């Protein structure tokens, strides 16, 4: 913007339409994305209120309701789906914030987390007949094991596939990340076969605990929130208040300066991978309990959804990743229930492209070198 004050008048007249265009683009960028995000909920809210929806069948006649309960149900389900995406998205955003790498294998690390958790259930002998205390204890143990497995796995992948390529062109680590994504998928394929496997519905995920304003709250939702909220709070405290967290933020801002200040950049990068992996493991357990099935290919879709979430929130920003995850969850549940699950992927990806076009910095993000 300095140029406008320095340049003489003839270029300035030529620059005026350009400046207007830039302002328009900023305006469209800021509000266009928000408008696009509000489009689906607002449309369905109006449609539910005006036209009503079929809430059930009573004595052979469809029961038509004119209220927002169905939308509320979509939101409740979306917020618990979104909790899973948020946990994975934090892993993308931490790593991207520090080394500007899209850790393509992250979704598959999440898948390994699911598989580990389910494997732990059979090791611990959890089944439908286990007592409530046993299930809770077993879930906590398998949560910890799954988180440790994926955390360590993520650090190992970083050591093998990304660390040797520090300083190489940025394409190189992205390609090894894709390579590792495929390797992990095949590990999953050999582990549990090629088709989705249903797992024991330990907590009765679909059972309704309570109904608030006509919105049924299922046990699976509660599990997702009970696991996710403390983890996100713990992570936020870690990043904002500990020395290691401070080192992470410093490295994200300027790796070179951080190194000069005596921060061990390599350890800090490993720490980011460890934290991302831990959260992906937790997401893996929630997914297995909540969806009551696991699949070697689940990580691909989850990874892309979570990446979309991270970009939507503003990549490199943890709060943004959580916000983005929840929004993606709501979009997903709206699309699943109202448009058809076979279109969900296309709709989420269309949002991804829309964000990239309208506002590559995301909702809460700052300009990055990539998206500037």
């Amino acid at each position, binding site marked *: 913007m300095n140029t406008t004050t320095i340049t003489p008048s003839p270029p300035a007249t030529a620059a005026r339409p350009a400046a207007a265009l830039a302002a328009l683009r900023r305006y469209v960028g800021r509000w266009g994305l928000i408008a696009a995000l509000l489009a689906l909920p607002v449309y369905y809210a109006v449609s539910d209120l005006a036209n009503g929806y079929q809430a059930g069948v009573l004595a052979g006649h469809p029961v038509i309701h004119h209220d927002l309960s169905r939308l509320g149900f979509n939101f409740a389900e979306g917020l618990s789906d979104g909790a899973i995406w948020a946990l994975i998205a934090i892993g993308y955003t931490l790593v991207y914030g520090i080394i500007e790498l899209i850790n393509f294998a992250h979704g598959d690390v999440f898948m390994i987390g699911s598989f580990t958790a389910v494997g732990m259930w059979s090791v611990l002998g959890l089944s439908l007949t286990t007592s409530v205390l046993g299930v809770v204890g077993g879930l906590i143990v398998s949560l910890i094991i799954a988180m440790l497995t994926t955390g360590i796995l993520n650090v190992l992948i970083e050591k093998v596939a990304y660390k040797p390529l520090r300083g190489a062109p940025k394409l190189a680590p*992205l390609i*090894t990340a894709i*390579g590792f994504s495929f390797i992990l998928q095949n590990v999953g394929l050999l582990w549990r076969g090629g088709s989705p496997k249903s797992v024991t519905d330990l907590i009765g995920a679909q059972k309704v605990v309570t109904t608030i304003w006509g919105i049924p709250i299922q046990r699976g939702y509660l599990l997702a929130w009970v696991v996710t909220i403390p983890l996100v709070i713990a992570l936020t405290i870690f990043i904002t208040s500990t020395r290691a967290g401070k080192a992470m933020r410093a490295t994200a801002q300027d790796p070179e300066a951080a190194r000069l200040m005596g921060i061990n950049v390599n350890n800090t990068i490993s720490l980011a991978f460890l934290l991302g992996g831990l959260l992906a493991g937790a997401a893996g357990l929630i997914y297995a309990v909540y969806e009551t099935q696991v699949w070697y290919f689940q990580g691909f879709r989850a990874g892309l959804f979570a990446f979309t979430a991270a970009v939507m929130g503003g990549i490199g920003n943890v709060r943004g990743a959580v916000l983005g995850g929840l929004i993606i969850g709501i979009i997903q549940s709206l699309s699943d229930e109202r448009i058809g699950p076979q279109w969900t992927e296309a709709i989420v990806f269309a949002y991804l492209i829309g964000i990239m076009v309208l506002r590559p910095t995301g909702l809460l993000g700052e300009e990055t070198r990539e998206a500037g």
Partner: protein
Amino acid sequence: MSELRALLGEWRANAEKVLPPWWSKGLAVVLLVIGVILPFLTGASSGFLNGTIVAVAYAVMSLGLNVVVGMAGLLDLGYVAFYALGAYCVGWLGSSFFFGVRVHAGASPAAGRLIGIHLNFVLILVAAVLVCALAGMIIGLPTLRLRGDYIAIVTLAFGEIIGVLAINGQSIGVGGGMTLTAGNLGISAVDPPYFPGSGAFSLLDLRPWYWLIFGILLIVLFVNLRVRDSRLGRAWVALREDETAAVSMGIPLVKTKLLAYATGAAFGGMAGAFFGAYYTEVNAGQFAFGFSIFILAMVIVGGIGSVWGALAGGLLLGYINNYLIPDVFNNLPQAFGLHFQLTTVTYGIFGFLLVLVMIVRPQGLFPERRRKLEMTGEVAALDAELGAEPEGPAA
């Protein structure tokens, strides 16, 4: 390692003294002749010939993706979209799928009696090129302001959207009870290519198929080599190396990038159209994300940005995928007491190859000179070399 490299350089220098100056052209002619007579060395419908046809078609795709990823440096992870569009061009324009209409142009006498749209394969090929070039530009548009891995994600998203459309296309009506695609059921009974004099191709005699795809490969290879050394090719390389500098030197960013997408997509569409006809079916299940990575692995193993590398990578991985893994080594895991077949983990093997190549030999098997220096960090050495010997060979 460096000693080995020095030794190789010495050999090459000696060889250039001994061989006549036209040896590389002579080699090209020999390879061309071998390429043309290859089908006579094997059975008319042998598994080897089938593997070769598929490998050559992969090489066409690899050459196309190399334009986008290698020359222009735009990491495209949705290349499968052009495979899909090219194949659907055959499905739409060369079968009875659109049963409500009757359009015929240059079709074989047998196909000429059927309902639906039946065009000659050459016309379909042209249509595939046009459709894919247009689609390539549309996909390229949102990525123009982005760099690096963001481009990768946007192209991936487009590839997936096309895949979802292909699968769900059976519920999208286009009028008259017809649908856009046949989803996972597949559009089947696609017309085989037909040329006056050759008759319609049949799967009992694979030789004409081979010559067809070999001809397509030669065209694509020729275009690749000419474009690489043209003003446009140099503009791509300049954009890849430093976008800001290239634009400030007057290279039109939008046009140059879109042309890269369009060119790469057009080649992918040609190969896709061939596959559609060769497999006699266009099934949405073929167009998965893994395929994009498979083609990317060819470009990377061969050497990013190198035309000969992309060709070699395509042939090599094509043979590995269609001959070595399923036919030769499939039962290898059982020999070690493991209960799976090697075909199950094909993508894992390619993933491993990607990691291995990137870490051990990031410039690929047949690197482009400029890219090799960049990947191995020997730019300073080159500067010294160029200073001493200004008339270095053109890359």
